[in-house]
């Protein structure tokens, strides 16, 4: 069978009414109802106080999911793939306003925080990791494409990979250009071997379109269209319920990323 195969060995999650992977398993598996609530961003315990002050809300969002997924593992030993469509929109918006306002200067801290790999940079500082890290964009396809690349890395190099996808709404007036309703982040630790794994995951890209899923649950109906990263929900629901799933994410310009999830 073709595709990149790996095992899921850790999960992190943060979204509206989903305050962490472990805390959300009852909701994701259908054992408890989903109760809407704002996404609460915890302060990042990883970072020293100076860096904590500099890191923006989007970085806190990413690090929360990444920290939960890698709990109990040697975080500094993981290669990382960070994926976000918008990156740090608040910082970008502030710079764009400064560039437009007469006599206004760009803030140096905002400028270095504006790079798309800012969250990855803070992860490296916080975990003292010197492992390779890549940051990807992907607009509305950022979740499936980022996951595909993370699985490719894991399969190609035979090393564990932390995948972290995160997105937060852009500030006005950019919010009208790429609407998002709430912040959402998810992270997976992918391993080449199955020891300690929750599920096997095979991923591939196909040029053929895939049909939209027949039905969505209440959770999917409420959240999937509100943030590009929330497209992970069908996979997370299957993972939480411990059931196998064939997943398919249609892409913007046609074709799809497909996944087969098989619980260990």
């Amino acid at each position: 069978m073709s595709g990149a195969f790996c095992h899921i060995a850790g999960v992190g999650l943060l979204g509206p009414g989903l305050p962490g992977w472990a805390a959300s398993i009852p909701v994701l598996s259908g054992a408890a109802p989903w109760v809407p609530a704002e996404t609460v961003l915890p302060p990042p315990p990883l970072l020293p106080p100076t860096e904590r002050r500099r890191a923006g809300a989007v970085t806190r969002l990413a690090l929360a999911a990444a920290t939960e997924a890698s709990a109990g593992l040697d975080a500094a030993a993981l290669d990382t793939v960070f994926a976000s469509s918008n990156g740090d929109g608040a910082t970008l918006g502030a710079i764009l306003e400064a560039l437009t306002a007469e006599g206004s200067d760009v803030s140096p801290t905002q400028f270095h925080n504006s790079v798309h790999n800012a969250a990855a940079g803070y992860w490296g500082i916080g975990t003292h990791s010197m492992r390779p890290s890549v940051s990807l964009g992907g607009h509305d396809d950022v979740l499936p494409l980022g996951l595909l690349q993370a699985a490719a890395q894991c399969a190609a190099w035979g090393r564990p990979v932390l995948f972290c996808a995160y997105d937060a709404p852009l500030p006005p007036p950019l919010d009208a250009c790429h609407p998002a309703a709430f912040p959402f982040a998810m992270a997976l630790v992918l391993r080449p071997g199955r020891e300690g794994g929750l599920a096997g995951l095979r991923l591939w890209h196909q040029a053929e379109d895939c049909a939209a899923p027949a039905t969505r649950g209440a959770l999917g109906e409420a959240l999937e269209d509100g943030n590009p990263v929330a497209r992970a929900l069908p996979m997370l629901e299957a993972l939480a319920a411990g059931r196998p799933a064939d997943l398919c994410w249609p892409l913007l310009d046609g074709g799809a990323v497909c996944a087969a999830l098989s619980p260990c």
Partner: protein
Amino acid sequence: MTASAPFPPLAVTAFTAVSAIGRGLAATRAALHQRQSGLSAAAKEDGVPGAWIGRVAGLEAVALPPELAAFQCRNNALAEMALATDGFAGAVVAARERHGASRIAVLLGTSTAGIAETEAAYRGRAPGEAALPAGFHYATTHDLHALPRFVRRRLGLAGPALCVSTACTSGARTVLEAAALLRAGLCDAVVAGGVDTLCRMTLRGFASLALLSEGPSRPCAADRNGISIGEAAGFLLLERDPAPGALAVLGAGASSDGHHMSSPHPEGLGAVLAMRAALDSAGLPPEAIGYINLHGTGTRANDAMEDRAVSQLFGAGVPCSSTKGWTGHTLGASGALEAVIAALCLEDGLIPGCLGVEAADPDFTSDIATGNRAAPLARVLSNSFGFGGSNCSLILGRA
């Protein structure tokens, strides 16, 4: 910091670059041999008095095909110009015949994509108006994904399109990510590289950090005082199993500093790890490298750090230089542009000594070339480092 699995050598079956020193390989090669810089003083409206930049001439006149008009922006215009150069698009069409459109991925790096369009949209608002003009296409210009989407559609490809954005390592890093896709069997060829274009955000952002050079950037000079920002596109068509003697990427390595967002690790620890990983992935000792194309931005901190890192691994035994005195620092494109320059250096046996530098910083201990040297080169190592503590090294040579 190496991958556990060895790096599979990648055939570079086509390549091209466009930068301030010219459009395509012949112009780039001529500028390197004749030591002709592409840098010029920034215009008043760039808002960075005293700074020099590496601008690509003629971009304003490049129109995208009508069906892709929504992608029109300076960054995609530069991509379009480069695809039409050195027969690159034709080589991709030939690869499409060999592998099928669905088996070719597009994996491109950029730091700011078409953000100049957003800057213009902000400026174009009437006083008191918050909303951006109706004709502004965010998804197909500003969004990072706009670049690989445009190139994929322009080339008629149907494999995955991915965008790497790791600041100034973006272009180099696409080569390592391409290797992962190929090794995992997810595709049979990859259009890799990077495109970044001049915009106010990067010019004024680097100015805010006091990192822009007064006058043209002079990497490795004792009195160097910063960066000249440039713009460029570099494309490489990568496939498996290079024929013996063919141009190839022999190794690649990456690391993170885990130290600071915008300052490199002072001892260059992350840089050493990336170079070491590239050597290990290729199964090569340091002495197998004939020339190192430095990241060499021209800032005090980067060049000093990089000299220490290079000296630690290579001693004074390998000639080094930065070509950013020619092209400026082309940010997310620099790793791709400099991989193309590395390929030209290999083909021509050329070590292009740092431009505008009479003598290297006397505190440096590596062998910094300040004039052009001729030498047979079997392998060239190219360094890229970036904000967020991102490091990537590539080794080009012959399979």
